[in-house]
């Protein structure tokens, strides 16, 4: 069993008890959607920052799996293998 790591931007870390990396044990691959669902159980406010109530990833939130942004993969169905890292970064937006 290897952990999957979720790396948070500093601005969201207060919503995860100050942690910069959340780890979850994984027997095998899980989808990004399931990973975010499990995160919502422990950190519901953090989860609402990433996805709206329909479950869609917010427009200016980018989630990377193995260096690729999931919108260019299979979105929430993108699989994350045990031992891989998921990185959450806000896009450059606003004024």
């Amino acid at each position, binding site marked *: 069993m290897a952990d999957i790591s979720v790396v948070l931007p500093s601005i*969201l870390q207060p919503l995860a008890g100050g942690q910069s990396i959340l780890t979850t044990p994984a027997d095998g691959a899980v989808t990004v959607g399931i990973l975010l669902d499990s995160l919502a159980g422990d950190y*519901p*406010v953090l989860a*609402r*920052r*990433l996805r*709206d*109530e*329909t479950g*869609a990833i*917010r427009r*200016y*939130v980018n989630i990377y799996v193995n260096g690729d942004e999931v919108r260019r993969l299979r979105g929430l169905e993108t699989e994350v293998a045990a031992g891989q890292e998921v990185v959450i970064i*806000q*896009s450059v*937006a*606003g004024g």
Partner: protein
Amino acid sequence: MGCMATEESYVLAIGTKKGLWLATSQDRQTWSMSGPHFLMSEVPSIGIDTRNGRTRIMVGVRSEHWGPTVAHSDDLGATWTEPEQGAIKFPEGTDAAVERIWQIYPDADARPGVVWAGAEPISVWKSTDGGEHFELNRGLWDHPHRSEWGAGYGGAAAHSIVVNPSGNNVHVAMSTGGVYRSLDGGTSWEPRNKGISAYFMPDPNPEFGQCVHKIAADAAVEGRLYAQNHHGVYRTDDNGENWESIAEGLPADFGFVMLTHPRRPGTAWVVPLKADGERIPPDAKLAVHRTDDAGKTWKRLDSGLPQGEYNAVLRDAASVDTAEPAGVYFGTRGGSVYASPDEGEHFTEVASHLPDVLCVRGAVVSAALVPGAPVPA
């Protein structure tokens, strides 16, 4: 009045494009500021709820990145609480997500704990627990007109909610859609726009589709409301059945603001802008206009306001408090905020160079809440 000054203080909440500022005062002329709270998030809606012996400030906060939420503070902004699961979210099956919370409206004293909200996409919400959790108003959400409501420049939202003293009559204004009225406390809704122009549509007098910018109820005359329209200022005396123009005497009939007095019948304030295509104060001279006779005549009020102002005042960037005389507050998209302790006769600048002011709310609070306020004997 001298007695009141030692027992009461004033709080002015200023929501901007990049955060919230809170100002407090003992005399509504000199102000102490705190903030920014929620830096880099816009704050388009604020409700100050002074019922239940508590001062609760509720804010609709929206981050471009992280979305909208509602937070509240019971200690004038020292700490903020955000319900874990979110105060306002569309239920499953609606396939909708809240974009922005445009209005937070504490109901009457007789209904403590009831707070209404208006949001984008066009929707009305009601809380019975002091604004911590809201339920979607299904009557309006499921209205057969909904697919025909449009979006104004700022988005498609329910931005005005007015509830009569008994709680049976609820008026909502939306852009664009116009005024909708419920006679059963919000269960069912019908458009009530007769007399309000929609000059931008092929039929300028449709049943609905108007771009009503703001509505407010007369303090003491049941069934009388005022509306600032997208060109046009109106009054109804029959609970929205018919609207008639009260724009004569104003320098322009465009604008966003409509305020009414907390107690005195016939008194309302607007902040005219020149036109749809020229959204600046007429002649670039910033002024508030007040009527004391339900719109028959208007008085220009500009003492203390800058001449040479090219910024608009948005629909919720203005407020009255409940003091006697009532305080009047507003802010501009240029980040200036003004306060009047005497119903608009004289203004002083509270702040300048803030980000665009989106929402302003003034309230009378217990002096005990405000640091530095005189303690009553």
